[in-house]
């Protein structure tokens, strides 16, 4: 996170108002809900649903 908010590669785009950051944030959020558990047990259904929403109807890249 430190590298994110100290990097001019990110901060310049934030200052410029680069809206592609929105899609990036949705992709990151989707992946968060797909991180496997430490014991590699099945992910809860809620996690999969939210990840699906981020990846499908609510965003993320299409290709």
């Amino acid at each position: 996170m430190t590298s994110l908010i100290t990097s001019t590669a990110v901060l310049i785009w934030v200052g410029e108002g680069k809206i592609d950051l929105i899609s990036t944030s949705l992709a990151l959020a989707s992946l968060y809900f797909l991180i496997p558990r430490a014991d590699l047990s099945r992910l809860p259904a809620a996690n999969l649903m939210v990840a699906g929403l981020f990846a499908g109807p609510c965003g993320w890249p299409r290709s």
Partner: protein
Amino acid sequence: MYSVASTGAGLLLLRVVGASSLIAARKSPFVFLATAFLLGLGSLGQLWTLVALSGQLTRIVTVPLLGLLTITHCCWTPAQIDLAVSLRNTLDELRRAPLGLRVVLVSHSLPLPILHFTGPRVFWRFPCAAYDGCESSGCVGIARTALVQAGNEPYGLIGEMTYAVLMQIGSDDAAQMVTWVVLFAIAATLVGYARRSESACAGKSSR
């Protein structure tokens, strides 16, 4: 206002899929807030795209809808209670955060609004004429043009349509500031990544 409305839309969606209390129960207030906000941002972006393609994306449609979503926070539902608890926990977590993290957060949070109102306006401003006629045409032209633009394929139209609506209900500044809020949502998600990795490592070492 748009961020609050987005969070309201996200909470509604989480409630519909029954994930609100589950995510809140994981004691990751940062992630819960970021999830609600980003989910709302994405769903609203997709909604605006459909409305724009039908040529109806005008203030008469957007402002009442955003107002309604903002008002949903007044209904004290379990999702709103989870949100309030998360807000309180976020402040507590920030107080308990390591000094280094707090210094980084504060030192980079404070200059951002100043940069926004000074730097971008002078150096980074790229006026977008395409949005000027948005209100009269219901954004239909923008939506169609953006849909067939090759560069938009990897990103979709969420950003474009969010920008168009923010221009419509606010100003150029409001549209540019959305990335500032999104940056904090990204940061919150990354904190969530770190937490999950931390617990995964702890789980592996204890086995």
